[in-house]
């Protein structure tokens, strides 16, 4: 039978704060185990949470960026379950009164634009991490609480997604916008962006939804579509066999490329949510929300429009430049230094992006301003386009700024007419037979003479000038 998948995504995004949601401990990634903890993160007796205002601001920014209604009153609730990585035996989260609801995100599919509705965004603290690696811990398990208490927003969609590709496109669009908003660094491998998927299928045309399963542990963009694809096929096989899909939580096993049952509905936790008595309701003044609204960074769609209309870039160039917030920022730094958007766009797309090969832009050892300077050196004829490529390689290798490189390597273009003329004269004197052949009609030999001049000057002579002078002297 043919089935139609119905998919909803629950995405956890780590907010880019310096400290935790309810504690002053640091959030730096990669610290040694339990270095980023305090009495609060460890759930010591007597500790109390104090809300991190910056986290709230980032959550509001995310909510506005995703076109949500931000609620002036929301509430903190405790979600209870026992697990060693959960220090207090409960997680502080938001339950029946989340910070924002009813938003949407536009995504671009090959078939056109699609709107995915956002049901809610709520804030919560992350749990720690159990360490079972026997190479490190022997026959014991350890717990690392560095992540415990890190601020997250959970962004929950309506079941508006209907294929693995759509899910993957949504994730990429969401990541893009969160990075633009400086709300989340979007790094799935480090766990700062995590995705759970609710997947069900139903016969095409049927209104009633099928039984859903919840997929967890999808920790890379590749796995989003892989896991969902697998699950759709698995459920279809179950239904085709005449059986029923069991409502359960399933884990994505990226090694085996399959989902495995984790717990059934009957084993599901009763989280015993209730409002956290240690925290007053979160009240957001209208003034604070509108303040954040007025200071919202430009989002991808607006940026693409500005690049094509004001900077007169092609749609393709604008799209590529805007795909990642860091790249767009790099490009803008370059054109602020030197107003030649088209040439700089070409350099960013053809040279910079190719050089970093999918690595984050932060790996680059020079700035957007440096690239702007490089292009300005071409435009003011200090160096030729060809020399510029060499300078660029040098910049990549050492991070030196282009002016320094041109100066120290003596790459400045030769534009002095007398100097070039004397070099030309010298070459002509040494090659009388080629002058004769040229004058006899073999005009291709002009290339030979140009090459000689360039060789003499290590490529620095202004090619245009060399051409002009040679033609004059040979005529």
């Amino acid at each position, binding site marked *: 039978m043919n089935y139609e998948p119905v998919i909803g995504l629950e995405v956890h995004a780590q907010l880019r704060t310096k400290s935790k949601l309810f504690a002053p401990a640091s959030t730096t990634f990669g610290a040694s185990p339990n270095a980023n903890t305090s009495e609060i993160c460890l759930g010591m007796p007597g500790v*109390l949470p104090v809300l991190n205002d910056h986290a709230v601001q980032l959550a509001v920014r995310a909510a506005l960026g995703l076109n949500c209604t931000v609620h002036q009153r929301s509430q903190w609730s405790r979600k209870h379950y*026992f697990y060693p990585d959960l220090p207090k035996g409960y997680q502080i989260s938001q339950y029946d009164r989340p910070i924002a609801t009813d938003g949407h995100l536009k995504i671009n599919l090959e078939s056109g634009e699609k709107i995915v509705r956002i049901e809610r965004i709520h804030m919560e603290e992350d749990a720690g991490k159990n360490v079972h690696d026997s190479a490190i811990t022997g026959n014991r398990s350890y717990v690392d609480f560095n992540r415990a208490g890190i601020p997250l927003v959970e962004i929950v969609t309506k079941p508006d997604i209907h294929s693995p590709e759509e899910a993957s496109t949504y994730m990429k669009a969401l990541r893009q916008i969160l990075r633009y908003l400086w709300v989340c660094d979007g790094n799935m491998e480090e766990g700062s962006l995590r995705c759970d998927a609710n997947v069900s299928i139903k016969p095409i045309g049927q209104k009633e939804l099928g039984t859903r399963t919840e997929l967890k542990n999808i920790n890379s963009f590749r796995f989003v579509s892989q896991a969902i694809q697998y699950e759709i096929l698995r459920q279809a096989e179950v239904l085709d066999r005449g059986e029923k899909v069991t409502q359960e939580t399933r884990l994505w096993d990226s090694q085996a490329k399959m989902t495995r049952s984790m717990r059934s509905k009957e084993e599901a936790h009763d989280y015993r949510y*209730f409002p956290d*008595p240690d925290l007053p309701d979160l009240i957001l003044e209208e003034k604070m929300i509108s303040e954040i609204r007025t200071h919202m960074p430009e989002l991808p769609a607006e940026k693409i429009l500005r690049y094509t209309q004001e900077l007169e870039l092609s749609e393709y160039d604008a799209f590529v430049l805007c795909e990642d917030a860091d790249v767009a920022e790099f490009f803008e730094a370059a054109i602020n230094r030197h107003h030649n958007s088209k040439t700089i766009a070409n350099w960013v797309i053809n040279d910079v992006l190719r050089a970093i090969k999918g690595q984050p832009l932060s790996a680059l050892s020079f700035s957007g301003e440096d690239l702007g300077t490089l292009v300005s050196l071409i435009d003011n004829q200090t160096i030729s386009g060809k020399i510029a490529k060499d300078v660029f390689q040098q910049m990549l290798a050492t991070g030196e700024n282009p002016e320094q490189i041109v100066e120290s390597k003596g790459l400045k273009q030769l534009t002095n007419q007398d100097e070039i003329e004397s070099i030309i004269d010298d070459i002509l004197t040494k090659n009388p037979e080629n002058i004769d052949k040229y004058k006899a009609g073999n005009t291709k030999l002009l290339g030979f003479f140009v090459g000689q001049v360039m060789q003499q000057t290590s490529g620095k002579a202004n090619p245009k000038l060399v051409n002009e002078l040679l033609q004059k002297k040979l005529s």
Partner: protein
Amino acid sequence: MSKLAEQTISEISTLLNSREISSAELTQLSLDRIEKYDPKVGAYLHIDHDGAKKQAQESDTRRASNNSKGPLDGIPIALKDIFLTDDLPTTCASKILENFIAPYDATVVKKLKNAGAVILGKLNMDEFAMGSSNEHSAFKPVHNPWNLDCVAGGSSGGSAASVAAGLCYGALGTDTGGSIRQPSSFNGIVGLKPTYGRISRYGVIAFASSLDQVGPMTKSVRDAAILLNVLAGHDPCDSTSADVEVPDYTDRLDNKLGPIKIGIPKEYFIKELDSEIAAAVQEAIELYKNMGCEIVDISLPHTRYAIATYYLIATAEASSNLARYDGVRYGTRHDPNQGLIEMYNETRGKGFGLEVKRRIMLGTYALSAGYYDAYYAKAQCVRTLIRQDFQKAFEKVDIILTPTSPNVAFKFGEHQADPIQMYLADIFTVSCNLAGLPGISVPCGFNQEGLPMGLQLLGPVWAEDKVLQCANAFERETNYQQRRPHEL
């Protein structure tokens, strides 16, 4: 009792200031008395001989160089074992925290230390502050110094008994449903539960977060005011502590009361109220009348739901607050090496006492899916009604006067068989916590067996000054607080 041991903080402070006695001598006296008498009382769980002596010497040095930190400098104080201290164990009278030493001091402990108080040690209590008799300490019961066969009350029983027996000059307690006021009434001392949010809860082991409040337990109303001056105030580490002005509570303590209105809620004079206590309270009312106060009959109609409401909210919050004691990070761990669930079961099964487990189960039930609306959510609605009862009453009166407890200190085991009976004994104290109001218990006489009785005064939120003033006027007109138990 030796004269010096009977004195109040304000009296001792004068002696310290006039150099008639040193803090070192005073501290030694307290430590000697603890050594001698506490085996009979059982008020202390940890005694800090060395620390106390050192702090006393430092205080004497400060005083010698005229750098005294104020009226608490050099005064021997003790803490209910619910306050975290980074130099002494904090057990909450539970096996699950046996030998636990906290990595930090509670905000109130810091404040006491900054005020120069000498910390003698940590005081016994009902395990996790759950109980009204101090029979639920995992380590030992507290005996009432007025009659060692009787309970000291609870949960701050160690605090009340140690003050009454002269084993410290003042103590800190916590009050979730009467845990400061009831033992204070059983021991003939003064116990103040301030407005919710008046004193930081940071570093105080939580029982029921929306009800818990720290307060002083002392021999006199003035002493309570002196301690409150040090303890009160906003704490950025406690989001529920209020950023409201803190007056000097000793300032207007001695002012004449004036023609204030005192409300007598009819719902508090029930048939279960001990007749001697009823008579003593009646006498107190007459006394206030003679002082020029107007006595007004009032009604707090939702009082009859207070116990049920309290035990739903308190147990629900407790079930959540006590989830962290899992043996993973600190405290006692029992691990039969059969996996995680068995470790949890053994640790919590053996670590918690019966009463604590009973309340965790009650609270877990009240929050369960399908029961939440009927129990916890409903209790919150009733809580609002109870709070409104008081708001309406305080539109008419300045202070509400009631008995603190329906009974005096009872014999050990008397209320053990029937937990409901024990819970009902909190009937006069729990509403105050549900409404977040300040309340005080002051001695109002002794029954025929010589056991102390307590009078409770309640005020509107943030009106600790009024409550203290009113209590002080009563104390001035009576001499109950001067009577101390016979030396044990």
